């Protein structure tokens, strides 16, 4: 091709050179013989993409700048028919640029044929004519270049050589590898000999990942009907929080071909991957036991008989809730004080009400004098404590009681001078007893075992515990600082100790040495009651949150056992004097009876077994059982309820 061009050019040049001479004479010089130049292109838009004009009505502009309108588009069918009719139709070519049809002439087709064959377009041109140097060398003063050919043109390149050497060396060294790496299988018998135990097991920190949960019936493509949630249930799932919503909702397909691809397959697989590499793992002991086996093995209750188990007797007569009951040491008499303002004395065996005192106000507490002969009853009513002669003993005893309950006017005056307005010892004319007047409400009265001293508790006062001496009609303030609100006092059954229960703690004081001995910390919200074991070494404390604390005085100040038995306040706790029994009663109108065996061997811990839940009291005004006490000799329990009934439970 290049050759052709060259020769053409040469010809042209030659022609020009030859024509140059006659340039002035011949004006046709400007004209070219090519047909293209004769007819200038109509369109003047130049070499721009024609699609720009696709949507326009014109195809471009003519030389004067006027728009050239597009020709009407020919019908395809017409053009086809025309093509069929006209045998020369194949010569027609549509010129997109000028929007016209051009018919090729014979010469033009010939030209195209030659070009397609790879020949020169014109048959007359010989591409292989010998080269004729038309430059006239001899007259040229300045040659184009006269420099001799440089040497470097004739020797191999140094830098190329260096590069090649470098490559060769790299290939020899193995830095460059020509042949493709072999695809070799790297598989081999990895676990050849498992019997060899030299392989170290993964360390102690290695925790294997837990296996995914296996599918249950509900994941089946065709589960039983009961696994498919109803429409309402599915709707309710949608209203749940995202976390609570079930991850998988069972569906049912009639046949296997209907089952679609699972939409969450990738997501679940990805989540599993995340679990595997992002979740901290830790070993958790999962107890797979029968919950019943957690319950301690208790000794058979049959072996722990006798204990109160069934309601045997009911003492009815009070009109309102019975606040407090007390059994006389002889085991014959039961005293009860009620909110209806009466104090009654019952004969236990027969249930006969022997005496009734109308004291006006609701009775807070009743307490028998613990001496067998002295049938004196202490009753706490409002601001008063009444010491009543019940008149139950024989004549000799009656005389003694009368003497004791006689208050001389002078002592009253002295006492009142001495103690200020602390307590007034007054003769009660109506009931032939003593009336002690306090400044605040008395909630509990507790007798010393010898029947001469007794203590009273005024929760409203900062120094609310007073100790009284009946024989001398004396009253002392308790000489220690009170921490918190006093709740109850108990005398040690054999020593001169006193247990002071405040709402937070129990303190034990030695009355003779005048010092604090122990402080027991039940760590409950509010202490409500306290009872001392007949040996004096064990204390139970009941609390308002329904917890019962057993303290061993030889052990720490923390409770030895804490029993969560009642859902509501414990109102009172009691020890039996001779049997290994204790009881608690609560506002949930039940009372528990426990076996509380204390061993003389110091190494053996006390045995505590719950024996019986005693029900029967009806809850009235939201209160249940208000007091409980044991019979001094028999394993019987008396409970006083807010339903104004006193019950006796026997074995």
């Amino acid at each position, binding site marked *: 091709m290049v050759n052709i061009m060259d020769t053409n050019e040469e010809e042209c040049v030659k022609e020009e050179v030859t024509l140059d001479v006659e340039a002035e004479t011949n004006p046709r010089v400007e004209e070219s013989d090519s047909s293209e130049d004769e007819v200038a292109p109509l369109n003047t838009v130049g070499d721009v993409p024609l699609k720009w004009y696709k949507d326009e009505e014109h195809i471009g502009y003519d030389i004067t700048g006027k728009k050239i309108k597009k020709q009407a588009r020919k019908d395809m069918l017409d053009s086809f028919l025309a093509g069929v009719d006209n045998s020369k139709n194949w010569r027609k070519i549509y010129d997109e640029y000028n929007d016209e049809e051009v018919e090729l002439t014979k010469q033009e087709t010939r030209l195209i044929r030659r070009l397609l064959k790879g020949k020169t377009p014109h048959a007359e041109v010989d591409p292989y004519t010998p080269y004729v140097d038309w430059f006239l060398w001899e007259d040229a003063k300045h040659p184009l270049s006269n420099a001799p050919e440089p040497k470097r043109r004739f020797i191999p390149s140094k830098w190329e050589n260096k590069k090649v050497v470098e490559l060769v060396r790299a290939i020899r060294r193995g830095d460059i590898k020509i042949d493709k790496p072999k695809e070799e*299988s*790297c*598989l*081999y*018998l990895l*676990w050849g000999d498992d019997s060899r135990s030299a*392989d170290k097991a993964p360390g102690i*920190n290695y925790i*294997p*990942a837990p296996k*995914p949960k*296996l*599918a*249950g*019936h509900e*994941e*089946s*493509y*065709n*589960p*039983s*009907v*009961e*696994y498919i949630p109803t429409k309402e249930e599915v709707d309710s799932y949608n209203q749940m929080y995202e976390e609570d919503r079930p991850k998988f909702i069972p569906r049912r397909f009639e*046949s*296997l*071909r209907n089952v*679609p*691809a*699972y939409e*969450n*397959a*990738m*997501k679940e*697989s*990805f989540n599993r*991957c*995340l679990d*595997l*590499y*992002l*979740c*901290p*793992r*830790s070993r958790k002991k999962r*107890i797979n036991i029968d*919950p019943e086996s*957690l*319950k301690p093995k*208790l000794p058979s209750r049959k072996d722990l008989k006798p204990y109160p*188990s*069934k309601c045997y007797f009911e003492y009815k007569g009070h009109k309102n809730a019975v606040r407090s009951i007390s059994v006389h040491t002889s085991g014959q008499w039961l005293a009860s004080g009620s909110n209806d303002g009466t104090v009654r004395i019952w004969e236990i065996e027969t249930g006969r009400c022997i005496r009734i005192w109308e004291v006006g106000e609701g009775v807070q507490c009743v307490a028998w004098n613990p001496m067998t002969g002295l049938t004196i009853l202490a009753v706490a009513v409002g601001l008063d404590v009444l010491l009543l002669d019940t008149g139950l003993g024989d004549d000799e005893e009656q005389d003694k009681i009368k003497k004791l309950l006689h208050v001389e006017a002078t002592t009253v005056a002295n006492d009142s001078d001495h103690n200020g307005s602390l307590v007034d010892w007054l003769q009660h004319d109506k009931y032939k007893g003593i009336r002690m007047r306090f400044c605040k409400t008395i909630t509990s009265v507790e007798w010393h075992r010898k029947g001469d001293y007794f203590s009273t508790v005024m929760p409203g006062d900062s120094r609310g515990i007073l100790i009284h001496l009946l024989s001398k009609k004396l009253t002392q303030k308790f000489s220690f600082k009170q921490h918190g609100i006093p709740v109850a006092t108990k005398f040690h059954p054999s020593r001169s100790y006193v247990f002071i229960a405040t709402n937070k703690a129990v303190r034990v004081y030695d009355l003779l040495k005048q010092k604090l001995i122990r402080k027991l910390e039940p760590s409950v919200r509010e202490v409500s009651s306290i009872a001392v074991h007949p040996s004096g070494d064990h204390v139970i404390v009941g609390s308002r949150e329904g917890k019962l604390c057993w303290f061993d005085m030889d052990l720490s100040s923390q409770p030895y056992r804490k*029993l*969560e038995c009642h859902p509501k306040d414990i109102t009172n706790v009691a020890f039996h004097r001779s049997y290994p029994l204790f009881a608690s009663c609560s506002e949930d109108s039940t009372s*528990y009876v426990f076996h509380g065996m204390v061993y003389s061997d110091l190494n053996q811990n006390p045995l505590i077994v*719950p*024996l019986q*839940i*005693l*029900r029967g009291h009806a809850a009235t005004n939201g209160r249940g059982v208000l007091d409980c006490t044991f019979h001094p000799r028999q394993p019987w329990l008396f409970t006083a309820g807010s339903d104004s009934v006193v019950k006796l439970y026997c074995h």
Partner: protein
Amino acid sequence: MPKHYRPAGKKKEGNVAKYITRSKAVKYLQISLQNFRKLCILKGIHPHEPKKKVEGTHKTYYLMKDIAFLAHEPILEKLRDIRAYDKKIKKAQKKRNEERAKRLLTRRPSYTLDRVIKERYPKFIDALRDLDDCLTMVHLFAALPAMDTEKLAVQRVHNCRRLSHEWQAYISRTHSLRKTFISVKGIYYQAEVEGQKITWLTPHSLQQVVTDDVDFNVMLTFLEFYENLLAFVNFKIYHSINVKYPPILDPRLEALAADLYALSRYFAASSRFQAVESADPNLAIQENAAIEDKDTRNDESELRLAQLQHQLPANEPGTLMQLVEEAAGEDNDDEETKVCKALFKDLKFFLGREVPRESLLFIIPAFGGVVSWEGDGAPYEETDKSITHQIVDRPSQKHTFFSRNYVQPQWIFDCVNARIILPTDDYLVGRVPPPHLSPFVENEAEEDVPDYAKTIKLLQAASRKEIMPMPGIDKQDLEDTQSLLVEGIISRTEANEAAERKRKMAILEKQYHDELKMELQGVPYTTRESISNETDRQSPAETTDGKEESLINVLPDPDPDQIAKDASSMATVVMSRKKRRLYEAMQIGKERKEAHINLLKQRKKKAESSKKSA
């Protein structure tokens, strides 16, 4: 001085020294977070929960020992090398040095995971124990389309396919498949290899849904490890049954996507070869096997050649292959394998075009059946007279052969789980099959046993000849329960009747027991006893002599529930707080379970009542 002051020279102790947060670990190892992730996945290192989170509660903590272990990992170096190498490639590409870039790309440094696998699973049994996730993942990716956007190359998908088929072929060959379950998520399989129960999930063979809310980098790293692990495991298990790994498959069958069948043929061929190698001359070889015998005495390459040219027959009964299989199998198979092997022993199956072929091609041979399918390369045609069951899943079958049963695919799965040939009545074409139950639920442990599970249990008992399913059939007939069941003599209604009878018996028995218990406690009688006078005091004690302690309770309403509640609440009183909390928690769990069971029962009752009314 602050409370936790540490003197200058003293080392850190406790949680500070033992744990390291993730960001610190990445800094310590001097790698990118992506590479750290990769390394953790490959090495199986996971975070730990320290007792005290020193650096803050919202951080991830790794054991310092684990991180130190990673720091010495050769793969860590390799990852750094790869990074440097990738820079070279990038540089070459940017400088338009295509040749160099191409040359560099062929020699990218790579790492092998064999050492890591051995480190993580020192014993083969350890690897088997952890194979569940591996199999599930490989099977999932075998079903995925190759994606350029997620860097999931076609080769990897093919590799996954190959590995999963190899595994299935082994399981099928050794008859160690135990349970199968079609769920909405896919098909679960459970196999027992070397005493390890391995469960995996294969997706339904459809175009999978590819979501874009997953991080493919993480999944592909996992897949990389799992592919390697499964390849080594396959190598080991193939080695254990004396088959060369990797297997060379018939390209024609492979092209037809019948890899499993190709693999089973490969197994058959290689086992024949080995059997002949080790055969004693006294082995009874049948006449028709003699010619093949000659062939197989040649070396292995020739065998392969022969195999490629389809000169070896398919698994036809009576050939040497069968002989070898039995001779090898009898002695070392355990009881269950024998049962599994013989389940479909004399049955010949043909699969329709619409049933999941891959799954059934795997299951049926695993339980001793012979199977063919509609399509090229199938061992036998649909017109074969000896076919006993044809598996179809279409509303109706137009042309039927009388000699065979047309059943839905679920029948195979249920038979496999029940280990008996179930009556085909319910599974016939066009019927709604009975509920498909999960074999992974221990029905004895659960309280709600679906009805169909009870039916299956009854049929199982019948096949074991334990009880007479019907009074009408004497022992003679029961001897051949298998055929009896196949023939459908025990129809479903009768089986249901038997179940109903059994239930009634159970109810009666329960009632009797309850009454007996009540009588023992004597509860209702003690309540009536009046306690009016004192002389009666000893009487209750006498009457209740030698019985429960709870009898002594004489409350106004001593109903037995109250007594039981009292007894339990009294026991909880003396429990320690820890135990009591635990007990309460257990009770909550128990209640939740009961609520669930009640819900199921309620739904069942509703469904039954609606069915009756309809």
